[in-house]
């Protein structure tokens, strides 16, 4: 009973600022200006299939790269001495203290045709290459901005893996490969799942990264939604419909992922 009272502020917050807006999004998506029911906005979303596919595709790539980069790093981090861990964590968090926009903006100057990378390449007689305004640049922006969100959950799970469990596996005759495959990876899976969720979801709905690094020609769902609310095509109903479809897609993807996780680790 006591815990329930303590949770009350958040429950109120959740219902007022999460559940109600969600219902409003759903309501907007299926009504017209005059408030009558329609599915035409949802049907209109169909014409943006390629934008959806591109967004999902780029986000999947970015999430995969994040996972590949973050996993060994998080493991290494969790095996370090405690005070070194603190320092390393701070270094990882450091870019996040800087404004998100500024970090992406810095990449614009780095990747530009007259940017630093092309300048350095020019010194050794290469290039200039077209780096900015490509989908590769968008993925790079996603990886750079969301990598810490992958490292942190992985690290916090791996930190809790008891060293003696690994030692026991080795004592019982496991070679390093099977220690990794049969002990470390299964034990770190919850971290992998939450890491993937925390990277994939913001990636798929981002709009500023694709605008700044994609040069406006790599339209993502986020851009499309932004255009419906603040952009040139003011159409909140279509925007709500796109958001609703996006939510459904994320939900499906997360449900599929849940099938892999241990039964007591269901995310949704």
């Amino acid at each position: 009973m006591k815990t329930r009272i303590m949770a009350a502020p958040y429950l109120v917050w959740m219902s007022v600022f999460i559940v109600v807006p969600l219902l409003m999004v759903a309501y907007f998506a299926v009504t017209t200006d005059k408030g009558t029911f329609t599915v035409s906005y949802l049907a209109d979303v169909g014409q943006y299939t390629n934008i959806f596919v591109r967004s999902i595709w780029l986000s999947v790539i970015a999430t995969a790269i994040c996972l590949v980069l973050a996993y060994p790093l998080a493991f290494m981090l969790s095996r370090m001495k405690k005070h070194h861990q603190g320092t390393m964590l701070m270094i990882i968090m450091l870019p996040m203290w800087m404004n998100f926009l500024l970090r992406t903006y810095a990449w614009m100057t780095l990747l530009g045709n007259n940017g630093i990378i092309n300048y350095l390449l020019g010194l050794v007689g290469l290039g200039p290459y077209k780096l900015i305004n490509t989908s590769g640049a968008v993925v790079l922006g996603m990886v750079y901005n969301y990598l810490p969100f992958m490292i942190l959950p992985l690290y916090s799970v791996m930190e809790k893996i008891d060293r003696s469990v690994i030692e026991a596996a080795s004592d019982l005759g496991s070679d390093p490969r099977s220690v990794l495959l049969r002990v470390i990876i299964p034990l770190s899976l919850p971290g992998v799942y939450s890491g993937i969720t925390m990277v994939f979801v913001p990636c798929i709905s981002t709009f500023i990264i694709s605008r700044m690094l994609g040069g406006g020609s790599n339209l993502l769902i986020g851009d499309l939604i932004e255009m419906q609310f603040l952009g040139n095509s003011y159409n909140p109903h279509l925007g709500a419909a796109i958001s609703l479809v996006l939510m459904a897609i994320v939900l499906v993807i997360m449900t599929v992922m849940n099938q892999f996780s241990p039964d007591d680790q269901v995310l949704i």
Partner: protein
Amino acid sequence: MRGTRRFALSLLCGALMINCCGCASSKKSRTVKAGYDKDDPQTVTVEDKDYYTRFKGQNKSINVYNWGEYVADGSEEGMLDTNKEFEELTGIKINYTNFATNEELYAKLKGGAASYDVIIPSDYMISRLIKEGLLRKVDMQNIPNSKYIMDSFKGLEYDPEDEYSVAYTWGTVGIIYNKDLVGIEEEDIDWDILWNEDYKDQILMFDNPRDAFAIAELILGYSINTEDPDELRAAAAKLTEQKPLVQGYVMDEIFDKMGGGEALLAPYYAGDALMIMDDNEDLTFAVPKSGTNLFVDAMCIPSSSREPELAEMYINFMCEPDVAYANIDYIKYSTPHSAAYEMLDDEVKNSKISYPDDKFIKEKTTVFTNLTPEAAKQMQDLWTEMKSAEDKNSNRWFVPLFLIICFAIIIVVLIRRHIKAKRDIF
């Protein structure tokens, strides 16, 4: 859109220089030049002081919603701080907020969440707001200073009877380009240069459909206000044809991209082009000879205004010759205010960029009007289609690959479940 976020960008520039050790060294920090003398600070003389002081001491306030950096704000020594001056003169408090695009303004007004007393939208947005009943009629009797507005900025198509708006600034759209590297004189520039293969990846383009379509329509010889579905489709095809040559679709990013020499050619608004040219001396600006879009931003009062009388007073104040001059001198756009124009330096008055000759304006420029909802929607759809069109090669692979991956995942899931279920039996 126009003249916005200048401050934010220069702030970013500054921060970047610290952050990545001079990686932004190719950019000069942007300073806004104001033509004021330290010893001669601006003073405002108003014609009828009683008109302004009648609400003094009543603790009133008005909400003004304007483009970013669109009034003189006293940010440099000797410059007039328009809003502060108004507050001191009238005792009315101003709540001043900014918007970045006409559409943002529209969304705010339409949403009805906020109440504004004075707004400064552009031509086509004004006619849209009028049509939807979101503006209230302005009583010109209460704005005696509207007499200063030049005749050529009265009775324009968006507000034919001058009932809703008082013009504030105007300008043209042209091409800003690097004259040395492009090697074409200003007089010879035309829109088709933006379709020239020689400048592949050196061209920037508007990131909003209205302006981008206007350029394609000018090349094709259509009206920039066309609502004909076939003409719109042809314009979209023209833009799709240009897409492989375009380095990026940008709005405010143009300040840095052109200023830093990232691209050679870009269409933009005259006032902002002047700012960019301050940064990068290699650049010049030309209004294409075949014609262009003339835009007008005008002061209006929304129908939801709670203090229309005070709003009219503010508009009148903005039309005081001294105030109008201070504003225009700072924001660098062109003025429709006859007295402010006379006060400008000869150099500015004769500038072809800010004040093209009357004959050109009359014959070759067109003001945007509001499109019908159908035409606007079609334009928007075509624009999204154009922007999301991939290079043919990669597009073919996206969908199948994605589907295969989805199927693979589902099959793996099913197999796993099957194995698990079997295991549970034993």
